[in-house]
């Protein structure tokens, strides 16, 4: 049975690139254009991994992570932040919100899959 991943980014190109990479690793990707759209996708949906952008309209990545972590069923789902931001204070905010890891764009597909291999249980 394939694993499911939720990809959240306001850039359609980014959603496409991340989804393609995840499919290569056997994931079934779901997508959302912002935090709110992604939360709507999550309702009643089991996911094995979430990859989210930080700066998005409507609901940003930090608010989205906090909302996800507030739901019991998603407390332990790995959440990777994939963003252009690399400042230490932003990373600290991501960590405090409940992110599992921080990846700075642009991502290399091979390296992304290595990270996913570390955070998603086999």
């Amino acid at each position: 049975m394939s694993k499911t991943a939720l990809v959240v980014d306001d850039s359609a190109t980014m959603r496409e690139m991340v989804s393609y990479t995840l499919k290569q690793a056997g994931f079934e990707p779901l997508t959302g254009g912002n935090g709110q759209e992604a939360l709507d996708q999550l309702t009643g949906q089991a996911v094995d991994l979430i990859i989210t952008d930080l700066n998005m309209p409507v609901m940003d990545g930090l608010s989205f992570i906090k909302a996800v972590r507030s739901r019991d069923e998603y407390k332990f789902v790995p959440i990777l932040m994939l963003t252009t931001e690399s400042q230490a204070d932003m990373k600290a905010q991501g960590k405090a919100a409940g992110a599992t890891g921080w990846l700075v764009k642009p991502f290399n597909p091979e390296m992304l899959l290595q990270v996913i291999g570390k955070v998603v249980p086999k």
Partner: protein
Amino acid sequence: MSENPVSQDHDAADAAQAEAIARYLESSRDLIDRLQSLREGVHDTLNEQFQIVAGDLEQLRAILGDAAIKLSSAFRVITTSAGQMRCALDEAAAADGSDPFVRLREITSEMTSTTGTTIQSLQFEDMASQLLAHVNHRLGALQQFSKEMSILNAGSNHLPPYLTEKELDAAFANLARHRDLLRNDVRKAVQQQSLDSGEIELF
């Protein structure tokens, strides 16, 4: 009229002084009007240039967006075809094992590797969009700044006086407030200078 010659001299001197002051005021008024006109000209020119730059940025955003859509679509077709070709070749090579099939498998392997570089490079669209949005926001703030300064200039049009000390203090405070807004308004989210892959940190 005074009959005292000294007093007459004083009257003449006062009249001359009054005339000189009037001339000075008139020339000052003319100078300030010209300065006002110059400031308005600067504002109009700045506004015109802001609009041109904003138009160019919008055009660039449209072109980048279109390029990203077309490249993503082409990428989808190529990767799907490459995947299907690889499967077909694997089956054929397993059955045949001849050199051409082996070479074709190598080629598809190179294509797969190049796909990774393509994925990394296509992310230019996300960064370019964020940078354009940032520049657009700055332009909007500068336009607002220019407009505010123009309003301030309009307030100094009436004579006399051009500006009271209180109005001048308010003008400086307004200038400082807008300068701070411009400096601290929006954080720049994209610091990348290339499409090299970014750092990774697990918490």
